[in-house]
């Protein structure tokens, strides 16, 4: 599974992309977030306040309850500021 980070989430984590095999028992975005938080202080900091984090799976916005499938592309990023 490809996991992407953008803007200040990427800055905190230190890189923009991880390849992750979804551990057994994790089947939604919330589970993935908890798994990532345990990977280190940068991850924990980036994913502390989920009110400021948006999630997309396969290029579509989803909620934290969204179910994940192997091969999904998951992205975490702050509210957008383009335009």
């Amino acid at each position, binding site marked *: 599974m490809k996991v992407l980070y*953008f*803007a200040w989430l990427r800055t905190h984590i230190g890189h923009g992309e991880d390849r992750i095999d979804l551990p057994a028992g994790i089947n939604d975005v919330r589970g993935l977030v908890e798994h990532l938080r345990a990977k280190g202080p940068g991850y924990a900091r980036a994913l502390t306040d989920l009110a400021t984090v948006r999630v997309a799976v396969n290029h*579509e916005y989803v909620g934290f309850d969204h179910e994940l499938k192997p091969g999904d592309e998951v*992205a975490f990023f*702050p*509210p*957008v*500021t*383009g*335009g």
Partner: protein
Amino acid sequence: MIRVQREDFDPGAEIAALTAGRHDIGGVVSFVGLVRDRVEGGRVGAMTLEHYPGMTEKQLAEIDAEANRRWPLAASLIVHRYGRLEPGDRIVLVVTASPHRDAAFDACRFLIDWLKTKAPFWKLEETAAGGQWVEARDSDDRAARQWESAAGKPDAAE
């Protein structure tokens, strides 16, 4: 139509291309967003616009399709830049063309309002203190929310 590109664009050329040879268009509305050198309480120099390739195109195409569902448009175009931009530079172009001007105005405003809260772009401003990620504005959320009803218009603007 949508385009995501590093290069600058020419609003006049885009408007002309969109309407060339068409005799059924009564009004063309365009919005050009520019980099300002000051934002709430401070001056900024250049900025870098990061985006999410793939998702950006998909979201812009969906927004464009939604505008064409809501209004009888003859043509529409979104061009959004990414990369390093300086004050005065163009960031985004939205053009809508319709037989009547009301639809063109409403659709153009809808597109920029929705784009601002849905298209995955993030601004990193170069300030005296170093790079700083721009925070999303509540006013942009409010502007987008007024279009959430399924109908074309947000209010009594008719």
